[in-house]
Structures are given as structure tokens and as C-alpha cells.
């Protein structure tokens, strides 16, 4: 009987040798005359265990990891193909606490299925949401999404249902669904993993959105740093065409919808929705002033839904299981689950999907197991390069949009980057300004000029040049950038800078009193 062996093709797994391991297992099994079939699945998200190899033993999957090519012969000697014991064996994958305690809705199929096998997708709950949406009126679909409380997962947290309603109500024959897959924030990789590991879920969400608002064309704006995701997504689109899902008659509904993939070209700012639209149109990725809202005048001036990968990827669950099922997770106005990403100096990095309200400490110390270096945690940056640095006394805050905003921080895309006690917070604050000056689109002065001046002023402070005077200038500059920038790039860069200053003034050669006065 053919034994199925899963070796992830996720690019993080490949970056630590998954391809070589897949080749080695194939060769070693052939040498022994073992009849195996390798499935290149998505990653389960336990990235510290990658390459994480799973063997299907009578329908139960047994996991081994991290597997290196040098381990393969020994693993097969130990009877890996029948679930045999070995130092790298972790047991029944579904029973691993790290996974089983999560609440995987958006990531339900991650690592479970063959990413490009539509039958596997359907056998695991795929397309149920879309079929339900086809049977509903557009207004009912929009109301379901609104009732679920789903908010934009790209960082801003705008209610998805309200955005869809605006597009549904907008007049016009041509409307678009644009998926923002320009996941440029350091510490975030959940969009990439979903596209590589379960691309049909994204396509299903986009198709539901299209039916809801009356769009016939969709674009995925994918960053060029993610070539594997592009390959897989294009293959998934081809498969969906072949199945009669995408194209002129979506699953026999009589409605048309098609999806195109467009590659970015290395501009961080294109993750901002209006500059992404300009870039999709083939232009410089310059931020647009709002209004007009993209919902009314978006891509090529037409009504457009712009949603993040995970927002669209959460929609199939909402339709399949109902708004209440989704809204039963979470806290206050942050409903549903968030796909948190544990990154940076972390022992057990990866993806944890849980309802909003989990604390940073539970994520980082519980799931993450503390730092990779074994040293104490000094600061955690949540929400990407534009998110605040949090210190120890804030680790028990519930991860929830409003609570974080009230604390001068942001949940953002759910990226969590851990720094140990060797981190130089003044250098990281300077980096925030430097990054902004590097990546600013240049349209508005506070962002373009302010960030350059920010680097200079921080340098003066750390070099001891009129520290108090320059601190005043820096804080003033932060105010101007916050209040005067056109988009979040310039507007939020002061967040990491200010938080680093307030929490870790000693790194700047300042005292807490000087910073707070």
C-alpha cells in the first residue's frame, strides 16, 4: 500500500531544507523498496520544527521534525513510515498541544491538505461558503459578513461588511475585488503562508466578495519577494478555471468572476491601499488622498473592495458556519480570530490563530516559549514596523484593537517581533525613521522630509549633542508626522519611535523624567 508522506513546500520550510528532505526521503524509500507518495503540503505553522515531516499511518498523521537530510536514513531505520519512534518524533499531529489549543478557522486547512488539490480542498470544507453565497442575495451576503464583525486584517481593522456595503451600493457596471497581498511588514508572514498552503481559501473569499458586491474581476497584488506564492496562486487560479469555478459561470451561478495576479516591485508603500491601486494600474505607487474612498473610486476609478489576504481568507468560514459562529470568538468589538505571527528572537516561532483577547504573554511566553537566545525579553514590537514597542508591564494586555490603541500601540496585522535584552532601542527607533525615509512615496512633506530629519535628530541625541533640545525637536517632529501625513506610513512611524523613547529612555542617554516632561 502506498504510504503518504507530507513535506511542506512553504517557503519558510524550504528555507531550512524541505526540498532536500523531500528528495532524500524519496530516494531512501526507493532504495528500500518502500512505496511512498510525497505530498508537498503547506506548513502547520510550527516553523521552529520545519522541515516538519508527517506520515499518514492508517489515517492518523504522525509528525517528525525538524528533519534534516542527514536524519532521513536513520528515521526510516526507526520505522518512520509506520510511525516508529525516534528522537525527532512528536506524535500524533492533531493532538499536539501547540496546535490543538488553537482556534483555527481561517487556517483550518493549513498544512492539512495538498494546496493545489481541489478535491482535497472540498473534502475538508472548501467551497461550502461559496455555494451558500451563490444561493443568497448579494445583500444577504454583505449582511452576513457585517454581522460576523469581521474587520480588516491588514492592520487598519475597518469593518469588512461596511466596506462591502459601500461597494454594493455604488452605481456602476464594472467593480473590482483587490486583494492586498503586499505583506511587507517585518514579522508578518501569514498572508504568504495562506497563499502557499491553502490558496483556494483566498480565491473562495474573493469570489464570495465578488458575488456580494457585483464585481466581475479581481486582482491579487503580490509582493515580488514572494515568488513561491505567485507560482502557487497562479496554479490555483488555473485549477479553479478548469473546475468551472473561476470564469464566465462561477459554479453554474451564471455569474462571471476572474482573478489576475500582479506582482509588485519592491516598494513597501504599495501595501497602503491607495498606492497599491496606483501600482496595480501600472503607475508609481503614490498614496492617494481620501476621499474619494476606494470603495467608490478605486481601481481604474471604479468601485473597489480592497481587502487583505486574511480578511478575504476568513470570509469562507463566515459564510459556511454563519456570522454567529465567527462572532462568538473574540472580545468586545474585535470579533473572530486573528492569525498571530510569532517572529524575531523567539524559540518557537510560527503561526497561532486564536480569538482576539489572548494576551501577548500567553502568545510569546506560552506558545513562543520565550526568546531563541534564552535571554530575557526586552521589547516586543506588535503590528509591524509601524507598530509600537511594548515593554514587560504591557505584556498582559489583551490583543484587541481598541485596548492596544488606548495603550498607544496597535494590533495591526498580528505580527509579533520579540527582541531580547541585547536590543538597542535607540538604534531600532532610528531604524524606524530610516525605513520611513527609504520607503516613503514622497507625496507628503511630513513623511518624506520628516523621516530624514528624524534620523538626524535621533543621531544627535544618541551622540549626546544637546540631548534635551533635540528631544524637543524629535517629539515635535513626531507630532507633525502623526498629524500631517497623508497615510499610515508617515502617520505611524512615530509610534515605534515614541514608544522606544518612553519605555527605554536610557538607550538614548536620557532619563525617564526628561522624556516625560
Amino acid at each position, binding site marked *: 500500500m502506498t504510504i503518504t508522506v507530507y513535506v511542506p513546500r512553504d517557503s519558510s520550510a524550504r528555507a531550512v531544507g524541505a526540498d532536500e528532505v523531500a528528495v532524500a526521503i524519496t530516494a531512501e524509500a526507493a532504495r528500500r523498496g518502500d512505496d511512498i507518495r510525497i505530498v508537498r503540503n503547506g506548513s502547520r505553522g510550527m516553523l521552529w520544527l520545519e522541515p516538519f515531516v508527517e506520515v499518514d499511518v492508517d489515517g492518523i498523521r504522525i509528525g517528525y521534525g525538524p528533519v534534516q537530510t542527514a536524519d532521513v536514513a536513520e528515521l526510516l531505520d526507526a520505522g518512520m513510515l509506520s510511525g516508529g519512534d525516534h528522537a525527532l518524533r512528536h506524535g500524533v499531529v492533531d493532538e499536539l498541544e501547540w496546535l490543538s489549543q488553537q482556534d483555527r478557522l481561517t487556517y483550518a486547512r493549513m498544512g492539512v491538505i495538498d494546496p493545489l488539490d481541489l478535491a482535497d480542498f472540498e473534502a475538508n470544507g472548501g467551497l461550502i461558503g461559496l455555494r451558500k453565497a451563490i444561493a443568497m442575495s448579494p445583500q444577504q451576503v454583505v449582511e452576513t459578513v457585517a454581522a460576523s464583525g469581521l474587520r480588516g486584517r491588514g492592520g487598519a481593522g475597518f469593518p469588512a461588511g461596511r466596506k462591502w456595503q459601500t461597494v454594493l451600493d455604488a452605481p456602476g457596471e464594472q467593480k473590482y475585488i483587490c486583494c492586498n497581498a503586499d505583506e511587507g511588514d517585518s514579522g508578518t508572514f501569514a498572508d504568504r503562508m495562506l497563499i502557499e498552503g491553502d490558496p483556494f481559501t483566498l480565491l473562495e473569499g474573493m469570489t464570495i466578495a465578488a458575488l456580494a458586491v457585483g464585481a466581475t474581476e479581481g486582482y491579487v497584488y503580490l509582493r*515580488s519577494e514572494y515568488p513561491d506564492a505567485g507560482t502557487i496562486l497562479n496554479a490555483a487560479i488555473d485549477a479553479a478555471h478548469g473546475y468551472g469555478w473561476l470564469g464566465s459561470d462561477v459554479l453554474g451561478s451564471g455569474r462571471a468572476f476572474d482573478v489576475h495576479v500582479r506582482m509588485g516591485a519592491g516598494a513597501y508603500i504599495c501595501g497602503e491601499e491607495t498606492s497599491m491601486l496606483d501600482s496595480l494600474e*501600472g503607475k508609481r505607487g503614490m498614496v492617494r488622498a481620501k476621499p474619494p474612498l476606494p470603495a467608490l473610486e478605486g481601481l481604474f476609478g471604479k468601485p473597489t473592495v480592497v481587502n487583505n489576504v486574511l480578511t478575504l481568507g476568513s470570509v469562507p468560514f463566515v459564510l459556511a458556519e454563519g456570522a454567529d459562529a465567527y462572532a462568538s470568538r473574540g472580545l468586545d468589538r474585535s470579533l473572530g480570530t486573528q492569525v498571530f*505571527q510569532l517572529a524575531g528572537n523567539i524559540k518557537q516561532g510560527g503561526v497561532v490563530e486564536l480569538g482576539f483577547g489572548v494576551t501577548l504573554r500567553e502568545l510569546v511566553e506560552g506558545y513562543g516559549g520565550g526568546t531563541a537566545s534564552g535571554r530575557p525579553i526586552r521589547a516586543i514590537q506588535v503590528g509591524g514596523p509601524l507598530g509600537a514597542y511594548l515593554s514587560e508591564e504591557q505584556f498582559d494586555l489583551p490583543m484587541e484593537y481598541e485596548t492596544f490603541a488606548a495603550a498607544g500601540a496597535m494590533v495591526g496585522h498580528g505580527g509579533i517581533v520579540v527582541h531580547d535584552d541585547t536590543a538597542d532601542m535607540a538604534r531600532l527607533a532610528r531604524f524606524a525613521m530610516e525605513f520611513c525615509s527609504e520607503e516613503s512615496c514622497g507625496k507628503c512633506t511630513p513623511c518624506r522630509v520628516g523621516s530624514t530629519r528624524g534620523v538626524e535628530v535621533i543621531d544627535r541625541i544618541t551622540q549626546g549633542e544637546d540631548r534635551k533640545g533635540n528631544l524637543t525637536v524629535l517629539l515635535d517632529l513626531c507630532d507633525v508626522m502623526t498629524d500631517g501625513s497623508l497615510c499610515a506610513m508617515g502617520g505611524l512611524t512615530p509610534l515605534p519611535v515614541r514608544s522606544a523613547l518612553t519605555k527605554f529612555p536610557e538607550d538614548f542617554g536620557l532619563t525617564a523624567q526628561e522624556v516625560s516632561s
Partner: protein
Amino acid sequence: MTERSLSEMPGGAPSDAADPVAARLETLALARKAEAGPLMEILHDIQHEFGYLPESATPVVAEVLNLSRAEVHGVISFYTDFRTEAPAEIAVAICRGEACQAVGAESLVGHAEATLGVQVGKKTADQSIELEQIFCFGNCALGPSASVAGRLRGRVTPEVLDAMIEDARRGAGS
């Protein structure tokens, strides 16, 4: 702009059959002309084929899409990926995002600069290797991340980076 005035300019002459590069550029641009907002797609295609954007790409693409050269140049210069000179044989790209910084990306960059003898953004004297900085490969749980000749690796130590470069050199030489 007329075709004649174009051909009088340096790097111009899009329809000059005697210039195979210009002819090929025109073919690539025409292939996507009918798509919505195709400029970036065309530039990607050209760069994919040539490895960079030849000087004549700007006037040829501008002509085909009925855009000004300034518009095309503006797009090329806006995006980090688009390059107007031939790349080195081997690109060494190191992530400098915060997550990789938290596990030693800066010392990895320092090591690469010292061993290759170049600053970030520059090519080695023999033009064979170019050192680049990247802001995030999306491999943030297994940093530091670096890619050599398009191959991404995680948990890159200075020794691993040296081995990656050595591998690429051997691959390029064979």
C-alpha cells in the same frame, strides 16, 4: 511624439528593424498592450528576459503605450526591483527587517561586507557578486534570512552565508 523624433534621440528608434533589442522590446510591450494598466507587467517581462531594463526600454515602451518617457522613467525609478544596469552574476540579499535584526541580521550584513569587500548596494570589483538589502522575505520566525542567487535560506549564520556564496560561485562557474 512622432517616431522620427524618437529615433533621433539616444536610445530611441523603437521600430528600427536593424536594432534587434528595440524590436524585441516592442514585441514584449505589444504583447500586453491590451491589458488594463500594463506598464509594470511589461517592465517585469522585459527585466525577466534581459535581466535589467535596457536604456531603450523607456522610449520603446512609452511609444507603444502612448505614455510620455517621463511617466515610464518615473515608474522605473520608483520601484527598487527595476534596474537599469545588468545585474551581477550572483545576488546576495540579506534581510534587514526588525525580525531578522532581532536575531543578528546586522552582524550578518557586517560579515558579508567584510568578506565580500563591498558595501550594501554595490558589486564586487570583479562584478560577479552584488550585495543587497531586503526588507522582509516573510521568513521572520526563522531569521536571519538571506538569499543567494535567488535561493532563500533561514537561520543564516556567517558560516552558512559563506557556504551559500561558495555554492553559488561553483554553480555559476560550471
